[in-house]
């Protein structure tokens, strides 16, 4: 059940298109920057196969120039540094 956030950079002039694509995809929440050509993408998938499939879909987006991971979480926690929830 991974939760991952990315910085998504669109190709020139394609920010609106990319944002629209990402917002329409399952398991995705996308937020466009107000003053830069940049999008924050947060994905929340139920299992590893879905995650892999989503990543393939993301890589295939024509408006996407670059996707950089900023945060990744899976259910494997560090026994010494886990959080009390």
């Amino acid at each position: 059940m991974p939760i991952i956030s990315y910085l998504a950079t669109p190709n020139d002039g394609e920010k609106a298109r990319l944002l629209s694509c990402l917002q329409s995809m399952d398991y995705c929440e996308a937020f466009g920057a107000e003053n830069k050509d940049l999008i924050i993408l947060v994905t929340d998938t139920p299992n590893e196969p879905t995650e892999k499939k989503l990543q393939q879909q993301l890589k295939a987006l024509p408006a996407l120039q670059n996707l950089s991971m900023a945060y990744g979480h899976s259910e494997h926690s560090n026994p010494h540094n886990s959080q009390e929830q």
Partner: protein
Amino acid sequence: MELSRRSFIKTAAFNSAMAAAAVLFPGVTFGVWKDNNAGSSSITWKKTPCRFCGTGCGLLVGVSNDRAVAVKGDPNCSVNKGLCCVKGYHSVQALYGKDRLKTAQIRKKGKLVDVPISEALDLIALKMKETIKKHGKDSVSIYGSGQWTIPDGYVASKLFKGCIGTNNVEANARLCMASAVVGFMTTFGLDEPMGCYDDIDHADVFITWGNNMAEMHPVLFSRMVANRKEKKHVKIIDFATRNTRSSLASDKSILFNPQTDLAVANSICYEIIRNNWVNWDFVKKHVSFFKGKTDIGYGTEDHFKFTDKLNPVDIDGYKEFLKDYTPEKVEKISGVSAKDIKYLASIYGDPTKKVTSFWCMGMNQHTRGTWINNLVYNIHLLVGKISSPGNSPFSLTGQPSACGTVREVGTLTHALPKGVVMSAKHREMAAKIWKVPVENIDPKPTYHTVEMFRALDRGDIRFMWIQVTNPMVTMPNLTRYRNGAKKDDRFVVVSDVYPTPTTDIADVILPAAMWIEREGFYGNSERRTQHFEQIVPAQGDAMCDTWQIIEVARRLGYQDKFPWSQENYIEEIWNEYIQFHDTPKHRMAPYSLLKQRSGVQWPFVEGKETKWRFNAKYDPAAKGKDFDFYGKPDHRARILLRPYEPAAEFPDRDYPFWLNTGRVLEHWHTGSMTRRVPILHAAVPEAFVEINAKDAANLGIVNDGKVKISSRRGSVVMKASINGRGNPPMGMVFVPFFDESYLINEVTLDAFCPMSKQPDYKKCAVKIERV
């Protein structure tokens, strides 16, 4: 609506991406975040300064069901204007580590056992009484921190100095900014920067002196980068002993040999005079020249004493002194080319350029820390680039209230909330406000931090109460001080939020309410006082550090000096404390205003904050038409003649490498909080030793290979980092100190600046071996 665990993680994911975006694209904003908030109708947002460094970023903490669940930068805070660093965005997660201390513990038959907190407080008071009776008042001590809130430090000082009558009050800020304090006092007669962060928006050139701001003060560094992006002529020059992220982002990086910043600073002054770039009008009206003692020692022996003696000199005497520092001569010892020294001088000397110098631990943790502070002021004073927008020599701090608490409240052995214990006038003022007999306040300082731990080892001190700090990781030459603290007839109380190597040696542990689990104030690097209310409940039996001290004070019989109720004691303490500073030079904002705003800068006079001190245009305390350095009796700042002198220990045949220690972006100081934040821990899970690739090749060391670092005091084995984030030059290694599994301070040397008593964590000699 209760925020689910996955929503919490998603918020953290979003915040991480925001933090990354802010570093890559300074000034980036995401308006949709507001929409995101709107959906979380049950989240309430409360303002607070960040828990970590001395920048003092304003945060908005989102609270749901009494739990802090989210963080965003406070757009109303002028410090960060809505931006945070990666630690700030994840700061609230530090509240909720699984091993949070929630009950008091007492060591019984060698084992720590849980007890009601009242039992622990009773025992602390009893031990203090017994120790004072048996060994005298100077056998008990308190060691606090630049993370103490202002009320914490204030009641500690009042109890120990005003009531018990001992000056055994110190704080870990001695380890991080004492040289800055003594630098300010010797040059200007008053502590803390004259400028403010607005200087970043006005400067044309930034020169960072041994200061990796990209990692240590990332929000301020982002503001510098944003200024450069907006105004194409703006330059950042990194002047340092190793290559860092700051070097990479700078327009020019100049490396110098450790300790030789003293020589380079003098050489810059030599060049400024030689080229007649001096602002003579400023110098004649506002500057005087003095020469102090030389060959002043390093403090490595117990009971070390030093007092400086200043003699006036004239400009010709200063020119004569500088003849030893021609760029060509200095090139030979510093490794900085004469051309680069001349380049630096030309920047300071160019009357069309506004220059801000930033520094932090590189200059302060230095056996001549006071001197190098003085020398950078000399440069700015010679060219008159000071106390005006963009022209600023600016000493940064590393803790959220090193300025607010340690420097302003005066939680150091020699200090009082205003002035020093040596002054009868200052003792009388303190006695009057504290309502104690003036005879209670001892006119003689006792022990600075290193000497205080030496006194604990020797047995001169038998009782120590440690609050909000982790000295069993941070003390240099650590093995001696840990062994000393563990001796049978020593009694150590530790107030903290997590188990640490310091709680490991405690006889009593008090669980502390952390940050927004209580009300308090911090004071940041730009004279900004920042109030925060209690936003979430304290966990278990955890108690505010201020209230812990009040409880013990009452048990010691000082009820009348600490009469406040739990309902409003922070406000009452604030109102008592600010009586110490009620002059135009340091007046502080009222409680009601601090509650409303994201910080208020002092001096706060007639409803106005003071952005630039010592300049009549901005500072109501300054008299005359332009500058007035009113901290000195003659209203002049001082150019002080300070020579280059070598480090206390330097590489030799047996120990051929310099060891430099410091921090990383993701972890804050000893890591006791940030290592409990999963994403920060995952980013940098353990400490490492940075080594130059050529040195590594010569020694057969590979990346991630095990390396033993040894000095004359101890050794540690850790993984190597080659061509990693930082890259030291040949002959130097760098180790961060955030990881308690690798106690690099067992290797460091407890030499200190004889004037500030601040240890030098940046220079000692080590050998490196492949394991």
